[in-house]
């Protein structure tokens, strides 16, 4: 039996459904990332798991216990908020000890746990500072410390890195993964950033308009999107309708094609053994390790990613080039 089991969860707000038919399973020690655009219901779903909101139907079981009837602090969960929610009048150490006090910890035991947490999150030099004196990254580490100090069975994180700037975000992503590997907590992480989802998740659930479209390991969701919606959301994908497939590649297909930019290669001459089409480069963008080209093929613009190599000079605009596709890399979209 899975550590966390969610079945038939749904919630309405008046007449509109916030989310419906939610079913999820999470194994112990897994990080499940809930990813989707703003307004898809992921935050409300998280809050229902936390006990801050009640669902209309369904059940949630954590470690074999049905938690829906329980108050938040009885569920064995802890939560990290996007805007930290640190108590402004308390120092870092006090924020952590206040949380532990609620669990009944006192005296030496309490002090030791606080010290251990401060060490773990490397907050030592700032332990007596108030939140107002901390940077965004530090504040989020304190929020995480406060949550983990409770040794929760399930850690919930509501877009914890969205308020931080890019550099800090990347650093905290690495730190989060390291912490999780070391402590092994189970977590549900909500984000709207699909890149973050791919980096952090052991399992990804793509959510849209209140439903989970697809859930699975990152490479499954990325490489084999089950629907147009998922394909369009994760990664930067080329979607070609059947007519366009015929028009561009001369291939007949019942279903639409989904082509990842990195699976299309460029060549100066056509290779008869592969599916090819003639085109012209119209745009070039250096993304660091890859170069992203826009190639106009039979009036259709395709996104093509090529690994950047100093030995290969970039293509000038307007260069005639052939795009090549390996049939095995084509994903068919059945919706």
């Amino acid at each position, binding site marked *: 039996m899975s550590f966390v089991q969610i079945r038939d969860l749904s919630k309405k707000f008046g007449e509109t459904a916030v989310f419906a038919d939610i079913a999820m399973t999470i194994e112990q020690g897994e990080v499940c990332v809930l990813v989707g655009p703003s307004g898809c219901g992921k935050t409300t779903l998280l809050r229902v798991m936390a006990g*801050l909101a009640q669902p209309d139907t369904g059940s949630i079981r954590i470690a074999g216990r049905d938690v829906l009837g329980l*108050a*938040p602090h009885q569920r064995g969960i802890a939560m990290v908020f996007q805007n930290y929610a640190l108590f402004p009048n308390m120092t870092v150490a006090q924020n952590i000890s206040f949380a532990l006090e609620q669990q009944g910890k006192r005296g030496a035991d309490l002090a030791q746990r606080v010290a251990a947490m401060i060490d773990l999150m490397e907050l030592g030099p700032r332990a007596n500072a108030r939140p107002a004196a901390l940077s965004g990254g530090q504040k989020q580490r304190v929020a995480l410390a406060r949550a983990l100090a409770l040794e929760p069975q399930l850690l919930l994180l509501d877009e914890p890195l969205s308020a931080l700037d890019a550099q800090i975000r990347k650093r905290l992503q690495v730190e989060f993964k390291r912490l999780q590997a070391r402590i092994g907590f189970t977590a549900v992480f909500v984000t709207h950033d699909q890149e973050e989802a791919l980096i952090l998740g052991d399992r990804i659930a793509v959510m849209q308009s209140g439903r989970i479209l697809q859930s699975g390991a990152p490479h499954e969701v990325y490489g084999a999107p089950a629907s147009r919606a998922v394909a369009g959301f994760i990664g930067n994908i080329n979607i070609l309708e059947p007519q366009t497939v015929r028009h561009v590649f001369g291939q007949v297909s019942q279903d639409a094609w989904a082509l990842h930019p990195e699976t299309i290669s460029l060549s100066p001459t056509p290779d008869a053994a592969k599916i090819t089409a003639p085109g012209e480069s119209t745009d070039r963008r250096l993304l660091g390790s890859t170069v992203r080209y826009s190639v106009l093929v039979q009036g259709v613009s395709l996104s093509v990613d090529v690994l950047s190599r100093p030995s290969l000079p970039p293509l000038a605009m307007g260069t005639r080039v052939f795009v090549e596709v390996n049939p095995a890399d084509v994903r068919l979209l059945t919706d």
Partner: protein
Amino acid sequence: MTKNHWMILALAPLFAVLLLFEVLPLLAVVLSSFSRGGSWSLGNYGELIASGYHRNAYVTSAWLSVLTTVIGMGFALPICRLLQRVPSGLQTMILTYSNIGANFTGFPLAFAFIIMFGLSGSFTLLLKAAGWIEDLNIYSIGGLVLVYSYFQICLGILVIFPSLSAITVEIEEAARLLGVSRVTFWRRIGLPILAPSLIGAAVLLFANAMGTYATAFALAGGNAALVTIHIGELVAGDVFSDPNLADALSMILVVTLVVPILVEQLWFKRRGRHAA
């Protein structure tokens, strides 16, 4: 949500007090203003409108308030501009003393001005000696203007200063780069940006002056031709005592104060406040 439903009890005492000591008394005044000789009537209002004595007081109160509001704003605005350029510590100090000045009303202020500008007051003597004035009667309406101006200017400083931050250094610099003259800057940029706050401030100052009782009473006693004094006399005066008339006069005063506030709120709701 695990909201504690007993929290509503926290609101009960204040709402009870507000009801018993603010709302109901006001309601009592409203209702009694329509009562004359025991029956429902508009007679009180009629009598007030017809009476030259009371009309005079209203007009005097009104123009005294308008005049001192203009004086208050007229001095406060340039003072605040000066204040902007002063270091923060000194700023706070001056604002603190403006706070004292704005509250320094009633007997203390009136008496201070009597000492300075009374019949044998220091400044009266100085000004007479310098030949600037013939005579100065602090107990006249002119005297009231002088005294009111003191706390109006102080209040003006307190109310206008925070809103000046809307005219940022960046805006001034941008204008300077475009070659905009000081006069044009204020006419086309500065005052329009400040207009909502300035109008709000003016309404506040007007209400403050119209509602002043203690200062006028301290200076001119029960004889002053002002609405607030007349109300006081009608309630507790030795000669005239007509509480219902006092109520009606009170209502006229309140309406005079509420109308500008309502107009200001509606006007700016429709147009939307300017953002810097």
